[in-house]
């Protein structure tokens, strides 16, 4: 009996499990999945919690509901991987061996990396919304807030879902307008990037949206520390931005288990072949989702496209064939922009987000890099698709590799 082991039962791990289960012969292969927590969080939903649109109950389901029967499920923290021994040590003292390993341990925020961030004001005037705890605490704060300086700061790139911070300030503009206190709230977007987003065309168009919505942009700001006493953030080159409430996107890093295994880079992300998703260093290890070091966005949609490619390559690997399927870096992100509208971007390693139309059979075209109601429905629909189609490994009506159809160059 051969063993296929999946580390991490989040978005990517669950998808791979569902795709491989039933395809690998159950007489030859045993599939095991390991995770430390029983609850699956729909992370894209965290964005809506601070504004009272979703609450915790809207974003949680038991992980096991999405694991097919017959799967060997182990609930324990992973201590470390020993890639030369083909085995994984767990915190519950279990040792798991494998023939093929899929690592899908994701990424998470590390507020401790920034001096003064997780200090006196943490969860009083400083919040994150990349965790369920942060998002809920911020919802509580906003409910009674009467206005002042709202600063959103991205500490360092790369971060997962790089559009989420922009969506956050767009939604804040809408939320405080609805509450009738928009004139009392100064919204300030502070980023280490040279503009609103990572890619030039989208950055300029999204920058215009910030302007239009009266959101102040400070670019090339690399945070060194937070001054809790005087409520300001200070950059390495000593620029200062004062805040009444700071919404921070702390550095995003891979899990410490990756560092303990000696398998990660300076962010604990794992060196991965950007086309085949095979580990650069070990032939029987594959990596998917936020845990990779790929120069693509870290997003659920990206993990989904990767899953189609990885599924084929795992089968090829098992059959002793060359890895033929090639990932192109495809990302497809709905950007919620407030007032019931949204913006859509679609891009890959080589093609930056472009304006135009995005065809979707049966649902109709979405507009790229434009604010429309249809794009908002796309975002709303994503949650349903996530639980009902994406996680279960079903085919979505979107190609895994990017298409130029409808795009204007």
């Amino acid at each position, binding site marked *: 009996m051969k063993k296929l082991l999946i580390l991490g039962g989040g978005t990517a791990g669950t998808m791979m499990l569902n795709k491989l289960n039933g395809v690998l012969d159950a007489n030859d292969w045993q599939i095991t999945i390991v995770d430390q927590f029983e609850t699956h969080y729909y992370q894209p939903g965290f964005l809506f919690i601070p504004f009272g649109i979703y609450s915790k109950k809207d974003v949680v389901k038991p992980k096991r509901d999405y694991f097919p029967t017959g799967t060997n499920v182990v609930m324990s923290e992973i201590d470390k991987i020993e890639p030369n021994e083909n085995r994984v040590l767990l915190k519950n003292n279990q040792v798991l061996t494998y023939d093929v390993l899929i690592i899908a341990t994701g990424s998470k925020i590390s507020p401790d990396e920034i001096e003064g961030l997780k200090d006196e004001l943490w969860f009083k005037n400083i919040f994150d919304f990349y965790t369920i705890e942060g998002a809920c605490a911020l919802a509580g704060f906003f409910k009674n807030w009467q206005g002042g300086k709202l600063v959103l700061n991205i500490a360092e790139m790369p971060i997962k879902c790089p559009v989420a911070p922009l969506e956050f300030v767009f939604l804040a503009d809408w939320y405080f307008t609805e509450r009738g206190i928009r004139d009392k709230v100064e919204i300030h977007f502070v980023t280490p990037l040279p503009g609103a987003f*990572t890619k030039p065309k989208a950055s300029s168009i999204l920058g215009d949206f910030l302007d239009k919505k009266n959101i102040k942009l400070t670019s*090339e700001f690399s945070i060194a520390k937070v001054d809790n006493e005087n409520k300001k953030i200070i950059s*390495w080159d000593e620029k200062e931005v004062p805040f009444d409430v700071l919404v921070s996107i702390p550095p995003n890093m891979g899990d410490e288990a990756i560092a303990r295994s000696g398998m990660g880079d300076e962010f604990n992300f794992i060196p991965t072949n950007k086309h085949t998703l095979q580990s650069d260093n070990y032939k029987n290890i594959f990596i998917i989702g936020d845990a990779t070091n790929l120069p*693509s966005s870290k997003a659920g949609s990206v993990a989904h496209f990767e899953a189609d490619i990885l599924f084929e390559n795992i089968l090829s690997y098992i059959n002793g064939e060359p890895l033929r399927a090639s990932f192109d870096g495809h990302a497809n992100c709905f950007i919620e922009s407030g007032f019931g509208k949204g913006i859509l971007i679609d891009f890959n390693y080589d093609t930056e987000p472009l304006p135009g139309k995005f065809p979707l059979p049966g649902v109709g075209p979405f507009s790229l890099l434009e604010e429309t109601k249809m794009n908002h429905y796309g975002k709303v629909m994503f949650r349903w698709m996530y639980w009902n189609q994406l996680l279960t490994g079903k085919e979505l009506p979107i190609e895994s590799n990017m298409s130029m159809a409808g795009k204007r160059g």
Partner: protein
Amino acid sequence: MSELTLARDADGNLANKADWNEEAALMLAKEEGIELLNERRWVVINFMRKVFEEKGDAPSIRRLTKESGINTKELYELFPGGPAKKAAKIAGLPKPKGCI
């Protein structure tokens, strides 16, 4: 040698790594508002080139801080504005891919 003779990429970095030498480095530094390449700056530039040689990409600030022996504060003093981006340019390398 003048600026005109060296081919550039879309970011204004050298298009051909082979065009790089100490003289080119100084010229690129001046474009970035850095008048002098002192010993500390060379530590960073040489580290950038070494990592690029090994990994095919210039290092992030986090990696620079961790491994070059120069802390973040000093990196920003040596290369005001954007250490990783500026030092990569002066080292004759393409802009770090790092962030998406």
